[in-house]
């Protein structure tokens, strides 16, 4: 006897639900239980990048056209504004040169090591997921251009997020506003540390804020470099107050995030010369020869355990792990 369609429909719904639960449990972000999931994501991103590029192309052209037209219409007022900015910049330029010279001399005096510039690649974002449950973007560069998971991503104004998935020619960026995003930051004024925690809203929270001085609205927030995932000193935003506590108005929100720069930053060992943090060659650990004084009583009373010979302090290899030293060299 053929079962009624209604029953079969219920069975189909149950099977689909079980499949969905199994997939959800198996694909925890950051700890996928089945490796095929990341391959599927890579392939999907590789296909979807060019498709979305075509889909959004007319809108990009329209916006460029509008920008060009508004620049033409607003040329006079823009010229006046730029002249005023130039006059102001000249003043700051003189100050900058003076401070740069003084800074260089002080650094030389103190022997402070400066960080070499990090390589970076430019990219255009083609997919934008911006709901409260996910804030990611797809950028049109990938492993072929040297991008790796964890690389920080910046717009022209500040930190945008970090790379969480890489295909050969596309990469997935987790924005600072995503509910999964956690970035160690500091307040420039007080040097207080906090964790910038996304919740899907436009302004992420400042969680685990540790400071004696209370933050103030307008305090600058920079990356702290703690943990070694993101370099120190990248601009993030400014402190704002909300009903639930302190939050950060992101610098990168001040303009559309069409074009981004991906810093090819792996960890702090990248900032050092090759071999600088390689383990030092240390003498092998060997037991010192037993002293005659210790041997004599041992020979007379074999039942008594011989005292353990002490190793001279100089021979004990004091090792420090490379990552720990790299972290301690955090600029």
């Amino acid at each position, binding site marked *: 006897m053929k079962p009624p369609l209604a029953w079969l429909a219920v069975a189909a719904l149950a099977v689909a639900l079980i499949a969905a639960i199994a997939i959800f449990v198996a694909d925890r972000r950051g700890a996928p239980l089945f490796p095929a999931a990341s391959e599927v994501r890579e392939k999907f991103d590789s296909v979807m990048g060019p498709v979305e590029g075509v889909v959004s192309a007319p809108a990009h052209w329209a916006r460029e056209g509008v920008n060009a037209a508004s620049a033409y219409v607003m040329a006079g007022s823009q010229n006046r504004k730029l002249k005023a900015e130039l006059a102001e910049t000249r003043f700051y330029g003189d100050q900058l040169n003076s401070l740069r010279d003084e800074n260089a001399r002080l650094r030389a005096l103190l022997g402070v090591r400066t960080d070499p510039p990090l390589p970076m690649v430019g990219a255009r974002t083609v997919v934008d997921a911006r709901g409260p449950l996910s804030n990611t973007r797809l950028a049109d560069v990938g492993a072929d251009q040297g991008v790796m998971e964890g690389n920080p991503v910046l717009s022209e104004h500040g930190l945008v997020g970090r790379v969480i998935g890489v295909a050969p020619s596309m990469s997935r960026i987790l924005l600072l506003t995503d509910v999964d995003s956690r970035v160690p930051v500091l307040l420039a004024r007080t040097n207080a540390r906090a964790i910038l925690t996304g919740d899907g*809203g436009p302004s992420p929270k400042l969680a685990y804020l540790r400071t004696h001085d209370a933050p103030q609205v307008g305090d600058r927030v920079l990356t702290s470099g703690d943990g070694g995932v993101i370099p120190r000193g990248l601009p993030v935003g400014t402190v704002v107050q909300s009903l639930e506590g302190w939050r950060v108005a992101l610098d990168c929100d001040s303009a559309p995030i069409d074009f981004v720069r991906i810093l090819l930053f792996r960890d702090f060992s990248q900032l050092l010369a090759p071999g600088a943090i390689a383990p030092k060659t240390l003498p092998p650990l060997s037991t010192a020869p037993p002293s005659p004084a210790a041997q004599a009583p041992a020979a007379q009373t074999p039942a008594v355990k011989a005292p353990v010979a002490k190793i001279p302090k100089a021979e004990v290899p004091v090792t420090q792990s490379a990552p720990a030293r790299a972290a301690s060299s955090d600029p």
Partner: protein
Amino acid sequence: MAAGAVQPLNPLRWLALPALACAGGALIFAAPLEALGLRLPEPIFALVPAFAWAIIRPSILAPFVLLVLGLFQDLLWGNPLGLWPLALLAAYGLTSLARPALSGQSFWTLWAWYLAAVTAAFALAAGLTWLMAGEAPDLLGLSLQGGVTSLLFPLAWRLIDAFEDADIRFK
């Protein structure tokens, strides 16, 4: 129910085409467009067929099409895989349970039920995200996305109107 021409219940017409339209809508609205500081809203298009299919008639294929649509949504947005399939199937399942009471109801009554299905789907998705990320998603953002999604009900009404009377076995 509005007097529209009833169409035959061809799976390609009542399942495949709406599913493709939802995928296309999600793709277009995922473009990184911004004008005057405002960005495109991001509704969950797949909740439209999830609600309409459950009312039109019981189906073996519909849950699996929703599973695929949800996975597409997760891959497009970078969510954990399975998040939106679960939310869509929950909305579909709840609406299926209420189907005897919903069949033949007016536009506004069905809109209220659609709002309930959208709320259930968002509550489940937000709860799962909270569970996985350890951080509650922004309530205002959820309300905005849910609100924009609930404005899509006229599309669900059109789908129901076109196919509800097609299979008299389930009237």
